[in-house]
């Protein structure tokens, strides 16, 4: 169940990995170590969760994968190419932020169409894809609404639709449901899993919720803070599709306990000063 880091590829694995993080680290000029060197390999179609407390560098790692932050040392490859040359691989990436980050002055439809507009996709073709994306997140009826007319959960769905509209291969999500109530969050988690399976996406999902991590992931990357670092990797072998029944199964509790234990251990080694 536990895998030592870094993973060594078996002799038969010739498939190009979706993401390779090669000793990437982030140290800010003022000396703050946001993330110690990380080695990580993610295969196509995996659902990866970066799990850890605040300040463990999980968002930093995700933003480095997206190319929003440059590593201070080391490299990150997407389909064997540096992030800024992703287009050469023919693959697409979408990023979903912690907040919906919608344009308040634009309708849901215009918001979802934004990445296509920026890329210069013709209007008619773009509108068809926007309709598809909105249907995927169940918001077809709200295409003309302004974001402020929607609930927090619906705004987050719009944000996800905006990610899906580019037909991504890789979906990066930075604590996307952190601000939502638990019921909405469970619903969106289930919908996300469904999308992931249907669209054969590769997902990296940042969260600080152990339950969310166990429920969603095929693999959990456990991280710890001060300094930010990867501690352990867990494979969650429960079969998909996972339903609400999975959440109350002994298996789920077992995984959750394991993660909890690891998290406490990792925190104990560094957090003697905090309350």
């Amino acid at each position, binding site marked *: 169940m536990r895998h030592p880091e870094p993973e060594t590829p078996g002799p038969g694995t010739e498939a190009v990995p979706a993401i390779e993080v090669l000793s990437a680290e982030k140290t800010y000029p003022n000396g703050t170590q946001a993330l110690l060197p990380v080695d990580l390999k993610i295969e196509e179609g995996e659902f990866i969760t970066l799990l850890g407390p605040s300040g463990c560098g999980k968002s930093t790692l995700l933003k480095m994968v*997206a*190319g*929003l932050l440059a590593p201070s040392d080391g490299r990150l490859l997407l389909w064997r190419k540096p992030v800024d040359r992703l287009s050469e691989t023919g693959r697409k*990436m979408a*990023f979903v*932020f*912690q*907040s919906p*980050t*919608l*344009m*308040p*002055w*634009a309708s849901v439809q215009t918001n979802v169409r*934004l*990445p296509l*507009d*920026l*890329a210069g996709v013709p209007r008619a073709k773009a509108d068809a894809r926007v309709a598809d994306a909105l249907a995927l997140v169940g918001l077809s009826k709200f295409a003309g*609404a*302004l974001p*402020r*007319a929607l609930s927090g959960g619906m705004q987050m769905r719009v944000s996800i639709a905006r990610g899906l509209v580019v037909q991504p291969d890789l979906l990066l999500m930075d604590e996307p449901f952190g601000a939502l109530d638990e019921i909405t969050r469970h619903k969106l988690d289930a919908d996300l899993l469904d999308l992931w399976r249907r669209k054969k996406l590769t997902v990296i999902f940042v969260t600080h919720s152990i339950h969310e991590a166990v429920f969603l992931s095929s693999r959990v990357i456990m991280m710890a803070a001060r300094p930010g670092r990867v501690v352990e990797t867990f494979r969650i072998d429960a079969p998909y599709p996972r339903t609400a029944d999975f959440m109350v199964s002994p298996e789920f509790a077992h995984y959750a306990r394991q993660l909890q234990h690891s998290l406490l251990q990792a925190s104990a080694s560094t957090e003697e000063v905090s309350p």
Partner: protein
Amino acid sequence: MSPSATPARPTPWLARPQVQRVVYPLLVGLVLVAIWQGLVTGLELPPYLVPSPALMVKTLFTDWAALGLALWVTVKITLLAFVAATVTGVLISFLFVQSKGIETALFPYAVLLQVTPIVAVAPLIIIWVKDPVASMVICAALVALFPIISNTTLGLRSVEPDLLSYFKLNRASRTQVLVRLRIPSALPYFFGGLRISSGLSLIGAVVAEFVAGTGGSGAGLAYQILQAGFQLNIPRMFAALLLISLTGVALFVLMAWLSRLALGSWHASENTHD
């Protein structure tokens, strides 16, 4: 936005907020005018000290030939200055947000422009610029310029950081970021600046007229006030003052209306109906 359930009984006329917004201040105005009229009549104050409101309105009509022409001159200068300040201010803001270096280098001069009293600069401008109308427009525009620059610059910079990151992730060009993100984000700030500047344009125009002291066909309301003062024609002075105030109010209302038109559907500042 969303069609709320229509109430069985329509709201009483006076309970509607949009009616109250007009009626309440109007009532206060009527009471004040009544008190004023009462005091003037009751204490038998001579019109060369304080004219009654009735006399003021009467003078407005009898002297309309001179006052109407002056009003047109002042309104013209105000509007020209307002437009000039808006266009210049927006262009300068665009320049400022291109790089922090440009802003750092030039912003102190924008402040200098703002803090130097226009009364002190106006005589110079009037000497340098031959055309009296042009010189007064420049003076008024200088007064109105700063709020546009500072508000629009602030607005263009006040972009939600994650949304900007999203644009960068999608390899948006500078122009795309400006047109699709910065300009819409700046609109609430820009309209705030317009509201302040519309009033300042009028103040600038009146001050410039005072300093220029142009008579004849180019005489504005400020000149009428000056002249009426020399002639102790106090009712005419009050009538001209009333016209200036009404012009300012009209400009403010116009700006509020424009702002509502542009932002009403999405920005919290214009959301008065919840």
